[in-house]
């Protein structure tokens, strides 16, 4: 959240800064131009007055005679200046000496220093501006003869104040515009960057273990794309975590069941060992205890063997190879027939003629485990049929009650009635895993008292593909 806020503020501040800079430049240019125009107007007006004044002054002065004294010049000048009702002030100087000055300024010094030349009706003037005590004056001076200088001083404060008024307005309008633009930018960015905040909150939630969390963003822009790929990532993370958790749960169950299974033989063995080492026993008791020790050790050994088998098929990544039914049939018969004869179970194996894809050893393990279960269930008939890729193994034993059928594939699960202390409840787990390795599942159809039928689907091998290959190898 803090990250989004910073980015938002940065962008807003950058926008406002650019805007303020642009407005400031505009303001400076506009006020500069305006000041120039107003000054030019003031100079033109003042110069026009100066032209009129100098023309009249010269006219009157020539009428008196050009050698007239300063006193006369002063008198003439005052009478002219007083006649004109323009509000301007006038200055008359001779040889740097002020003969008349009603302006309160010393225009000569100003005009020397910072003045410009203005030509009006072939007559030269010097024009300049002066600011004194907050008032602005425009001064235009003209030389009269060789040593006299006439200046007109005009108060242009009102005009100059127009410029500062303009500047103030520019600043006010610019500030308002910048503030408004900043506000709008902030609002806009807040709305536009909302998915970013959602992303941040969602990734924090996912990091905290809420793997089901997703970002809601229906937009088509870059942020929308980021949100989409974020969701894809979250989904695959969730899938992985689920898989890992399921595997770990399964492993835990297996370990739990394993420790349960080991408890009995270990307790019994340690008890008999204690009796043999610590207790006074007669020969018959000693023989009994030794026999129990041996049978319980065997039990542990069988458990170990079954677990090893299970681990083998759990870790296996088998390659499915074409398997002729005759080969599998031979392997099954050689293993099952002697046992079935001894145990009085009728054995029927029909595997057809279709080549399947599978592993002979694993499929044999599957069938022999089901055979063991059938024998424990008191079956008199055991049947293995392979037809159109469906392997069906059925018996006529005591069957499996419906209510426990979904549990029988779990490791170490043993039906209550079959608790014969002979097996460990790993056989069907093994069979189910073997079916999985063949890309299928082990399905059971059974009812209490009516036998059990297990089916799994095997992949058929396409004979037409290998037939030519076999032929060509013959030639």
């Amino acid at each position, binding site marked *: 959240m803090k990250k989004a806020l910073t980015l938002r503020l940065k962008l807003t501040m950058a926008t406002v800064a650019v805007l303020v800079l642009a407005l400031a430049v505009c303001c400076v240019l506009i006020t500069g131009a305006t000041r120039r125009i107003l000054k030019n107007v003031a100079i033109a007006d003042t110069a026009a007055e100066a032209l009129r004044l100098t023309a009249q002054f010269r006219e009157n002065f020539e009428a008196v005679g050009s050698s007239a004294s300063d006193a006369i010049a002063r008198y003439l000048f005052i009478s002219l200046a007083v006649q004109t009702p323009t509000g301007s002030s006038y200055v008359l100087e001779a040889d740097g000496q002020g003969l008349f000055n009603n302006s309160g300024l010393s225009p000569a010094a100003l005009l020397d220093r910072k003045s410009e030349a203005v030509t009006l009706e072939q007559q030269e003037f010097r024009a300049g501006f002066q600011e004194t005590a907050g008032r602005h004056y425009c001064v235009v001076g003209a030389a009269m003869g060789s040593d006299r200088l006439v200046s007109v001083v005009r108060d242009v404060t009102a005009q100059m104040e127009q410029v500062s008024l303009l500047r103030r307005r520019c600043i006010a309008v610019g500030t308002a515009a910048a503030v408004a633009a900043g506000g709008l930018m902030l609002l806009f960015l807040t709305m536009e960057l909302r998915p970013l905040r959602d992303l941040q909150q969602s990734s924090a939630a996912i990091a905290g273990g809420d793997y089901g969390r997703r970002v809601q963003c229906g937009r088509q822009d870059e942020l929308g794309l980021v949100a989409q790929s974020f969701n894809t990532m979250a989904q695959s993370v969730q899938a992985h975590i689920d898989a890992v958790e399921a595997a770990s749960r399964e492993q835990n169950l297996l370990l739990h069941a394993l420790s349960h299974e080991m408890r009995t033989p270990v*307790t*019994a063995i*340690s008890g008999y060992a204690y009796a043999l*080492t*610590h207790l006074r*026993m007669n020969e018959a*008791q000693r023989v009994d*205890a030794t026999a*129990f020790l041996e049978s319980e050790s065997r039990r542990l050994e069988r458990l170990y063997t079954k677990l090893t088998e299970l681990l083998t098929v759990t870790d296996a990544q088998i390659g499915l190879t074409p398997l002729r039914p005759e080969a599998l049939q031979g392997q099954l018969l050689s293993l099952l027939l002697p046992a079935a004869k001894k145990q009085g179970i009728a054995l029927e194996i029909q595997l057809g003629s279709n080549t399947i894809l599978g592993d002979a050893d694993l499929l044999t393990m599957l069938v022999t485990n089901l055979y063991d279960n059938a024998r424990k269930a008191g079956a008199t008939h055991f049947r293995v049929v392979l037809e159109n890729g469906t392997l069906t193994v059925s018996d006529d034993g005591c069957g499996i009650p419906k209510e426990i059928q979904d549990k029988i594939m779990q490791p170490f699960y043993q039906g209550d009635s079959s608790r014969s202390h002979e097996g460990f409840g790993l056989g069907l787990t093994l069979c189910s895993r073997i079916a999985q390795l063949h890309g299928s599942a082990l399905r059971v159809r059974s009812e209490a008292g009516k036998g059990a039928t297990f089916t799994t689907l095997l992949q058929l091998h396409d004979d037409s593909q290998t037939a030519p290959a076999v032929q060509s190898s013959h030639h």
Partner: protein
Amino acid sequence: MRKILIAEDEPAINKMLCMNLGLMGYDTTAKFDGQQVLDYLAGGGSADLALVDVMMPRVDGFQLLEPLKEHGIPVIFLTARGDLEAKLRGLTGGAEDYIVKPFEMMELLVRMEKVLERRGKAQTRFLLGGVAIDAEGRTVTRDGIDLNLTPMEFDLLLLLVRKKNVAMSREGLLNEVWGIRYEGGTRTVDVHIAQLRKKTGLPIVSVPKIGYRLEVD
């Protein structure tokens, strides 16, 4: 003889307990599920102590607690490791103790004796051949004649008698009789055993690599 009721559905453990406890001089009754225990109680059966497996088919260990209490039979549960819930339930439900499988026979024996002692079922008078022992009066007679045993000799004899037919290690005897802080070596035990053999004439047998065992029938 003190009678122990064993309720355990695993035959291997049940038979092992019967054999061991029988050899240690207890009378045992084996039951393989809860229903058998209920039937036994209903038929007027009794016991001084019951060892009950928690997980049993049909009627489980917890369901046996009330009926056994009604008959005044203390219960020690045999439970699975780490089954904390079961432990709590067992103890708060009125079981005297519990022991986690797999367990050592010696540990079970100690716990059983503690429960029996609490219930006043500990044996105080023993008669072995011509030797009579009164644990409360701390007297020993041989063929009616008082034997003059030192306190340590008496404690050692009582321990061997209580664990008759069970081999005890020298260190175990030293700890039980002289206490864990005793600094003398296990030679002390050998000397006292020799004295006891001479005074009582009881068959206290040396068990190689373990220690001593009082063997009586």
